[in-house]
């Protein structure tokens, strides 16, 4: 018989004497991979050992935005050095469309192309370089078709990827007309390249019986599994997808990781050899979708205090050539067209414009940020119209606690703490004194001007597609007392694995160091949702907790039977299990349970309660709860060049009962800077042929280190548990603080407005590059 592991000789630290409480929920545990990150030992897909016979993939790309393919001569490609296999869509045994929700995304072009960069054919060669040299040798003949390259053209031609849709509350036209004041405006909100530091990458290895083992840098392994199975025309149970970690995701690997996994699998299937497919950075930037650019407009009616009485908002999303996730993204832009403000009588309309560009996709905030920009512009515009501080206008429009608390989609805003939060931030950031000193600075300086703005964020938490709000987890207890947890969530740096380990450790009251989290694999936990919508911990943490409770209950039942005690006399604490008057180490008791033939493995499941939304009526409760926060930004601009700098940022953000304050603060800081980048230096430029010109980091500028403000103060709302029963009453944190970056844009407008002595509201499309800031300053001067 196999003997059990000797616990005393195992290398687990004896923590029973530790004075620190175990578990770890609420503590700033370091990221589970931190030591590996800093020493280069963390393994990303490109770091995996090369398999015997492994080949490298590349794809040939469309050079036209919209064209029929007349002919494709691949003879030189096939003859090129190192090339082993070349495939077109004709070599796909199964589905040729890999659209994630709606059809429209051919895995390789079928007769026509709809954007510059669309994959035409794929090559497997003996090295990355040879594959990339070979794809350049194709001779493709096109018949050019008319391309739609602007939102205005798409609207004029009613070119949509999905039908328009409105959310209506009351009679907005009437309310606007009968209000004391009316104004209107429009804004172009730019898109955003994800610029995850690790580019898109997948590898595929054929397995027995025509199956495929796939490693994918993906936020959605289950979808990769499904699409690989479909393109190969094999059942799901023959495909395994493994994602240990991503070098950043931000939404860019929710649907956009799948094409490269599918192409790798197709090439592996044809060549019968393992394939690695790593996108070159500039190809990644041209071939994968980005945050949707939007062109929005509004007309609003308001009273003497600036309180909104009625509003019409139209958001026009540039979806690119296919639906991808655009239906839900434009929905979320519409859901967040109120931000934290009561719109009263409102009509919010969303158009999903089809253009001949890459298909735009999920990006942190998922349309929410683009929706919020319109209403924040409205706040600034009303303030300048009435000659008031924009903060006063924002405050007078906030959702009420007892009344004025229903959104334009008829969800009640409950547990609303935004008033206290803003009041607290006004005080901690010294807003009013700084408003004075900014005004004084601006009186004394002609070239440089300062701006200050406080903007709030209210962000709805849940997938607005109800069925995605579910998760599974699998926990194993081993006989040395260690625990291994698997769940459907993926790790992209956000600390999900760390938080889940803390949750499981908390349930068993053991040191979270003894809880291992395995890579996310479709054969461990099936049918998972994407790690997206800030929901990773809410969903997977709850599922892991459910699994832990099942095993705990079994251990308690075993204890009551073996030691003849009541269940209430069994207690987990300090890596020990107390049974009546006896105390066993956790590992010892697990061994007893094993000998007693107790199952030490369980799955857990969770689905978010309360949520529903009826798209036909535009009514429901799409969100389980709201996450809130606010930021104050102070900027300095140069009125001769448009250059600017963020001088100071103060943030107060609500994460409920924080599972890990250090990780949550890291999320908030990172999201804020990423949001600032979106609205300032990150400019996507396409030429009049639909080709992306900002296709590398030399031309597309994400924030660098000196863009972080010297004075950067981030505070969590002091422990204030989520009133909804979320995991340990925490709140999601991934996306909401991204929109705190809007305060930087509003502060830039404040500085620009000072040139008109605050009488004019500058029109400032985003990204607010130095060039756009200079033109806005010039417009102030011209209208003086």
């Amino acid at each position, binding site marked *: 018989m196999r003997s059990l592991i000797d616990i005393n000789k195992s290398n687990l630290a004896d923590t029973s004497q530790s004075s620190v409480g175990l578990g770890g929920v609420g503590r700033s545990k*370091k*990221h589970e*991979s931190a*030591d590996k*990150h*800093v*020493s*280069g*030992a963390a*393994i*990303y897909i*490109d770091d995996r*050992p090369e398999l015997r016979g492994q080949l490298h993939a590349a794809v040939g790309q469309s050079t036209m935005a919209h064209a029929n393919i007349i002919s494709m001569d691949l003879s030189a490609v096939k003859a090129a050095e190192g090339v082993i296999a070349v495939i077109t869509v004709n070599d796909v045994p199964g589905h040729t469309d890999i659209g994630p929700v709606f059809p429209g995304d051919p895995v390789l072009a079928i007769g026509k192309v709809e954007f510059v960069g669309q994959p035409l054919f794929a090559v497997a060669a003996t090295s990355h370089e040879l594959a990339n040299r070979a794809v*350049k040798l194709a001779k493709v003949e096109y018949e050019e078709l008319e391309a739609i390259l602007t939102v205005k053209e798409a609207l004029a031609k009613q070119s949509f990827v999905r039908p328009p849709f409105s959310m209506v509350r009351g009679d907005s036209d009437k309310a606007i007309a009968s209000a004391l004041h009316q104004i209107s405006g429009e804004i172009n909100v730019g898109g955003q390249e994800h610029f*995850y*530091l*690790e580019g898109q990458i997948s590898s595929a290895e054929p397995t027995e019986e025509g199956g495929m083992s796939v490693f994918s840098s993906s936020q959605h392994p289950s979808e990769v599994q499904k699409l690989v199975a479909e393109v190969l025309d094999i059942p799901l149970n023959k495909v395994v997808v493994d994602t240990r970690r991503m*070098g*950043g995701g931000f939404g860019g690997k929710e649907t956009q990781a799948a094409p490269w996994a599918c192409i790798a699998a197709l090439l592996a299937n044809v060549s019968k050899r393992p394939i690695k497919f790593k996108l*070159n*950075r500039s190809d990644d930037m041209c071939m994968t979708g980005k945050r949707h650019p939007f062109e929005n407009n509004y007309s609003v009616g308001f009273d003497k205090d600036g309180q909104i009485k009625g509003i019409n908002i139209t958001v026009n999303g540039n979806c690119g050539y296919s639906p991808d996730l655009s239906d839900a993204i434009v929905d979320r832009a519409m859901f967040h067209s109120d931000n934290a403000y009561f719109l009263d009588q409102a009509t919010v309309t969303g158009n999903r414009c089809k253009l001949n560009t890459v298909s735009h996709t999920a990006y942190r905030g998922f349309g929410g940020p683009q929706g919020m920009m319109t209403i924040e512009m409205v706040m600034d515009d009303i303030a300048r119209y009435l000659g008031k501080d924009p903060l006063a206008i924002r405050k007078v429009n906030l959702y009420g606690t007892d009344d004025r608390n229903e959104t334009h989609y008829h969800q009640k805003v409950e547990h609303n703490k935004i008033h206290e939060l803003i009041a607290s931030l006004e005080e901690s950031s010294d807003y009013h004194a700084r408003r004075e000193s900014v005004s004084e600075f601006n009186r004394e300086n002609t*070239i*440089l001007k300062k701006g200050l703005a406080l903007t709030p964020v209210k962000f709805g938490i849940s997938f607005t597609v109800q069925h995605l709000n579910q998760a599974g987890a699998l926990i194993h207890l081993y006989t040395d007392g260690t625990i291994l947890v698997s769940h459907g969530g993926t790790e992209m*740096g*956000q600390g999900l694995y760390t938080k889940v380990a803390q949750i499981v450790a908390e349930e068993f009251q053991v040191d979270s160091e003894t809880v291992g989290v395995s890579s996310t694999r479709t054969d461990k936990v099936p049918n998972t949702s994407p790690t997206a919508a800030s929901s990773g911990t809410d969903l997977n943490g709850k599922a892991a907790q459910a699994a832990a409770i099942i095993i705990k209950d079994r251990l308690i039942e075993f204890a009551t039977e073996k030691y003849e005690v009541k269940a209430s006399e069994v207690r987990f604490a300090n890596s020990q299990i107390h049974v009546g008057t006896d105390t066993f180490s956790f590992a010892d008791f697990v061994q007893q349970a094993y000998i007693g033939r107790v199952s030490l493995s369980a799955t857990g499941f969770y689905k978010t309660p309360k949520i529903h939304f009826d798209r036909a009526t535009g009514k429901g409760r799409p969100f389980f709860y709201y996450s809130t926060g606010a930021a104050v930004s102070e900027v300095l*601009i*140069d009125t*001769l*060049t*448009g*250059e*600017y*700098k963020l001088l100071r940022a103060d943030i107060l953000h609500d994460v409920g009962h924080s599972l890990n304050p*250090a990780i949550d603060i*890291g999320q908030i*800081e*990172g999201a*804020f*800077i*990423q949001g600032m980048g979106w609205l300032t*230096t990150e*400019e996507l430029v396409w030429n009049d042929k639909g080709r992306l*010109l900002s296709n*590398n*980091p030399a*031309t597309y*500028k*994400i*924030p*660098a*280190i*000196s863009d*972080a403000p*010297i004075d950067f103060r*981030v505070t969590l709302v002091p422990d204030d548990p989520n009133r909804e029963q979320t995991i340990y009453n925490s709140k999601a944190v991934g996306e909401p603080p991204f929109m705190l970056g809007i305060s930087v844009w509003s502060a830039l407008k404040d500085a620009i407005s000072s040139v008109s002595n605050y009488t004019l509201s500058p029109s400032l499309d985003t990204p607010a*590059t*130095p*060039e756009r800031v*200079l033109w806005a300053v*010039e417009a102030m001067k011209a209208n003086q």
Partner: protein
Amino acid sequence: MTISTVRFLLNNEVVTLENTDPNLTVLQYLREKQFNTGTKEGCCSGDCGACTVVVAELIPNKKDLDYKSINSCISFVGSLHGKQLITVEDLQDGANLHHVQQSMVDNHASQCGFCTPGFVMSSFALHKVNSQPSRAEVVEALAGNLCRCTGYRSIIDAAMASSEHAKPDSFTLHYQQTVQQLSEFKALPSASLSDHQHSYFAPKNVSELATKLIEQPSAVLVAGGTDLALSVTQNFNIIDDLVYLGDVDELRVLENSDTQFVIGSAVPYNEFTPMLHDEYHELGEMIERIGSRQVRNNGTLGGNVGNASPIGDMPPALIALGAEMVLQRGDVERKIAVEDFFIAYKRTVLQESEFINRFYIPKAKPGQFLKLYKISKRIDDDISAVLAAFFIEIKDNVVTDLRLAFGGMAGIPMRAKQCEAALLNKPLNQENISAAQQALAHDFQPMSDVRASDKYRMKVAQNLMQKCYLELKNRNIETRVVSYA
């Protein structure tokens, strides 16, 4: 003759490379030949810093080492000859993390972790030369490393706090041994490398270089490689024959006399910048923004001028300063004004087999000012939309001499002659500045591209003249959002 090898230290192991394609980058060498995958590929264009490694090299004529962060993705493997290559895997001592690594952990400074090895190496290089860096010094040293997750605050804190747990690392313990080994490598004949299809040669003196170029005019010169390497890593081109300039003694000359500076064409920015900074403060600070520290550790003046890009930042500055350059072919030298080097977009007066030897930069005389303005979307490591370099001599409030040079305004870096004429021998006042601004519109017809529109380029160039005027008139007013250029 030469030996067909490249020899360097990989951490503390001697490596001798033979029969290797010289197009191989240091990053490819590490990941694909050594299977050291700790160093990451983020962009393969020297823009993100994920691939940062450190090279230690002997300081000329000293028994001391300099530790430099470089982008391994755009460094050819031949350039390692005579140096020590240090990667993220080499820092820890057994199970103990190096203090720059431990500080990153303690400060929660990694999230996805992909950029982290690069930050660790940049921070390591900084701490090797500066154990108590200020925030500004940290920001300067890490400006070439992009992080998309953290927002940088935690990384800055980590780099500043690293010294709290500092203790001598293996590089300090092996210092003398390393110096000894690198000195021995230095004494070797000129390095070369070949895979029988592609060649690499690193002459040790100008005579070897000149002879090589006469023999093989098609050979491609590489110094820092910060631009050239992109042709290999981005476009998948192959360079048949490379000639590396970094080992040519005469091209590393640095002289600082009473009247001028002499800078060899292959001197990296970070070696000549301190000297220029003392004389021309704004030039020193502008160079900090020309490229990241990694780029400036490799990039050279000869490269920036020689590649004749219309958006290089040094040419307008050199033209404004009236700098000269010496070109050499065989053993024949000729000296020309930098201004006369450029003919048209990406075309220069350089003849076949000719190379840039050195630059002469005059020092300022009383009454002479150099004003520099670099306009870009991002402050750090961004190519200019417009670079304005104004050299003005003022006597009794009259402009007695001036050269106004611009980058980004035309197909080559060039002077605004009509604009200059509007100011020369005239009082420095608003009226004449306004006239000069008008004249600028006759000097240039800038273009629109990914960085800026034609209209913005013209408007901002005109506004910079106004700014220069206001700054010269009143040295105390605040006119810049950043403390430099």
